[in-house]
């Protein structure tokens, strides 16, 4: 009952929250002293990056672990890992795009040799590599196992990205949102908008994941039908 309700509500709530973010971000919150109206990207970029790194890549990694662990092994886990990774690619690309858009006016360039930027791009290529690896193997079990290992090994990059700003001390913004002195940096309506954007984009991820997962389930059903047909065709081979 609860489950069904939340299923039903996921879409509307997601879009309501995103609409709220847009409204708050564009009309309600004030422009920044230093950055002016550019600060409004604060309600998009960090949230998108958060989803890309932690929510989606994290989901893919956890699902991969659960697949590899014998007691929780199931095709669902493999499927979730695959779908989450695909969505992750989308969010990583969005992070790069929104970051670049922000970078152009603030740093004067679209791209800089900054540790966080580079490591984010690397994560993107890893996610693409994951998809390429899946394509390269057609035995489902082997594919599931290999890509799960790859996802787990790739996840090492996530903390590297997070700490890169501290380790390398370069251009990109240091931790602002998730620090103890957060109150000093963002406050009032900005903090609320930020929070809503995080929740909104996180829900967006789950909404996309669910849509992608359903597609995969449909494909599986089609696959099963094709399987039966192929088997009966094969059985008739040479008998005619």
């Amino acid at each position, binding site marked *: 009952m609860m489950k069904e309700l939340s299923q039903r509500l996921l879409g509307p709530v997601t879009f309501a929250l995103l609409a709220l973010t847009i409204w708050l971000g564009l009309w309600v919150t004030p422009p920044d002293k230093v950055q002016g109206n550019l600060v409004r990207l604060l309600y998009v970029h960090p949230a998108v990056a958060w989803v890309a790194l932690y929510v989606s890549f994290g989901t893919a990694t956890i699902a991969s672990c659960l697949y590899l662990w014998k007691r929780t092994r199931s095709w669902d886990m493999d499927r979730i890992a695959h779908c989450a990774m695909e969505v992750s690619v989308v969010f990583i690309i969005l992070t790069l795009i929104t970051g670049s858009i922000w970078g152009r006016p603030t740093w004067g360039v679209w791209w800089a040799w900054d540790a966080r930027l580079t490591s984010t791009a690397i994560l993107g290529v890893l996610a693409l590599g994951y998809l390429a690896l899946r394509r390269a193997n057609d035995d489902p079990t082997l594919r599931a196992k290999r890509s799960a290992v790859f996802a787990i090994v790739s996840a090492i990059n996530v903390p590297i990205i997070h700490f890169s700003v501290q380790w390398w001390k370069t251009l990109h913004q240091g931790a602002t949102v998730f620090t103890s002195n957060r109150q000093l940096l963002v406050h009032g309506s900005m903090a609320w908008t930020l929070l809503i954007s995080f929740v909104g984009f996180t829900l967006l991820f789950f909404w996309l994941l669910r849509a992608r997962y359903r597609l995969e389930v449909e494909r599986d059903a089609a696959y099963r039908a094709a*399987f039966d047909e192929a088997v009966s065709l*094969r059985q008739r081979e040479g*008998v005619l």
Partner: protein
Amino acid sequence: MTPSPVVHLRGAVALSSGFPLLSGVDLDLEAASLNVITGANGAGKTSLLRLLAGLLALSSGEAEVCGVDLTNGDLRQLRRRVGWLGHEGSFYADLTVRENLRFCALALGRPTDEIDAVLARVGLSSRVDTITKKLSAGQRRRLGLAWLLLRRAELWLLDEPYASLDDQGRTFFDALLADVINAGATVVLSAHDPLRATTLRPRTIGLVGGRVREVAP
């Protein structure tokens, strides 16, 4: 209670990029028996052998080989008990004949001093230090036999073992088969010709379209 069969398949299906190599195989094989798989080209003989060796994944159905369940058993345990001789030359092409056998013997924890005797038995004494990739087709097949001799597997899976062996090689192989079965191993081989040795009483498994059509006797 009868002893459980070495191979037990029910409705076994195996796919390769969507095509069913095996389309529902039902098969039981007893221990210490000789089994010959026959069938037209493309019927699925090689695929069946690969499935039994744990080299091909099972897509649906049940399969148990040497007591190991193919769906969620320990395939490595199974593979250790299986001797495989494929179409293609096996082993490391850049090692010499002796080095290849040494590697296998050490990997299995067997003594290495049998190697020369085994090579003499399969008639490769004159090629001990030849690089494997330089061997002729039949010599490569003989190296495979030498390896099986060292191996002493429980279940022997041989894909067209007679192909490219010369007459003397075939006679030797027939003798080997008889020995092996007497020693209690199970042999499954694929072949296009009827077996030459009449003293062996093989069971013939006829495949058609990825399924067992008939079993005789």
